[in-house]
């Protein structure tokens, strides 16, 4: 029973990923004059997707905090690094 739920969960996550991707692609085609809102949507979208994969497929949600810490810290610093280079 509980196993079945887990399978459903994985499937749901997958569907969510697909939907978000579809939304992202459509958004990228919309003829915005100002690109900023579009960029924001896309960034948020990809962040959502990444966190979905990491939380459920990589089991960060139920696993030890250590793993989350050890990958979260690089993620934050890495984002900072990239932001630095935008300037």
């Amino acid at each position, binding site marked *: 029973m509980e196993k079945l739920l887990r399978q459903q969960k994985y499937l749901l996550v997958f569907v969510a990923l697909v939907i978000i991707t579809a939304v992202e692609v459509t958004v990228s085609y919309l003829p915005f004059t100002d690109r900023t809102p579009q960029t924001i949507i896309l960034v948020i979208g990809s962040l959502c997707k990444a966190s979905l994969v990491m939380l459920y497929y990589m089991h960060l949600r139920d696993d030890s905090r250590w793993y989350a810490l050890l990958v979260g810290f690089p993620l934050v610093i890495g984002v900072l690094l990239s932001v630095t*280079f935008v*300037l």
Partner: protein
Amino acid sequence: MAVDAATGVGIRARRASWLRYFSFSTDHKVIGVQYMAMSFVFLLLGIVLAMLIRAELAAPGVGVVNARLYNGIVTLHGTVMIFLWLIPALVGLANYIVPLMIGAEDMAFPRLNALSFWLFLVAGLLIVLGFVFGPAEAGWTAYAPLSTLGPAGQSFWIIGLIVNGFSSILGAINFVTTVVTMRAPGLTFWKLPLFVWSILAMTVLIFMGTPVLTAGLFMQLFDRSLGTVFFSPSGGGDPILWQHLFWFYSHPAVYIMVLPGMGALSEVIPVFARKPIFGYKMIAWSSIAISVLGLLVWAHHMFTTGVAPAILFPMMITSMIIAVPTGVKVFSWLATMWGGKLTLQTPLWFCIGFISNFLFAGMTGVMQASIPLDVHFQDTYFLVAHLHYALFGAGVFGAFAGIYYWFPKITGRMYNETFGRIHFVLVFIAFNITYMPMFWLGVNGMPRRVADYVPEFATANLIISISGFVLGFSFLIFLVNFFMSWAWGPKAPDNPWGALSLEWTLPSPPPQHNFAGRKIVVRYPYDFGTPAPGSGHQSSPPDGAGG
């Protein structure tokens, strides 16, 4: 090995024990010794190069070496001393000690551990051999586009550093995993020796910083071999990009080289002062703070490049804030010694030297963190002096404190205390006479990495060169002491210093599987002092040889 050497058994056993060090061993102790031994080989090379530099600079005008050779030597000296001597020496020490300190039988991934050593060896050979194929002559910072235009040796240098990067990333992963998963039962994080804390902080820096440098090195390699234009302005590239990627690793590299020394101090000082470490948690947290802040200061090497203040100014502030945790460490060490019963033996002397030199590194560091001041200091001998105070005065002194302190445990012999003290006195005095005048030289107009200089700097440079040769000589005293004592020194007891951390509960040198089948008594490792609260332990003063 303690068995009588007369019987063939003893001899064969001894020979076997020597051969281990030339094999693909997975024993963390053997690997640790391999690391340290190799690093000392490279140290000798680095010293020879330094002597050549000082010989060239002893008098103005082109003397001993020509400009090409000089730039090559400067580049190789920096690279060897940082990547092939100091970091490997400290990693080797940690490799030997950390598993013992946490009561583990070995590292978490013994084969990976061996692999990282042999990768390091390959990297070292690549970097040194590159010198033959037209030396890399862009300095150890390898600023593009000078480096992308340079001779073939530069490519060897790049590939060598990439391999070295893999080696240290694997090593770092191994350390963190070991400390997190292999601690003896009951050994909580807040009972870890501070050396382990500092190694943890150091390895975080390694596995965060090195990949970025590796990315940059790949780009530079592509620029040289595939004709990409990452750093070449003619193709629309940006030379400053390299500086960002390089310093993102190479500033943390400074803390990578200093943190283990700080850890060693936090071990040695309480033992030789017979007093608990002062403010354990603050010291542990300051290590973590240094490593986190250390990742956010890289642009302070680029204050003269004209990069946006929006990047430079925040990094100036973070650079200054790093002075706070480092200050906490220094004050805590002083407070630990205050009211103690200091046994002034070589390890403690090196700790005192560390504090004294590190003070200068710190003060000039804060000065260089301030953008307007640094604009004048940048790329001058002031900076050369500062970085040697940090890496040599602090990093190397800390390494020596650790090496002397754990020498009995590693070799099973006592080093010669008299030689040790001579070594300290010589290296401390020569060090300060060598590098102190460089502050003045830099401020008054001597840029770094010049083969020639104006006559008014002749006197200062001559003094520096002479004292530099003495400094180089002082290392020989150490090496003589090291090998003589290892071969013929008096047998060391299990715990010559009366220390309380786990590694001293083992025989010296420790058996192959460390704690296999032993009871591990976990306790707070700084439980010195009378009356010792909690434990009924009445510790006795160190009875080291010559003490």
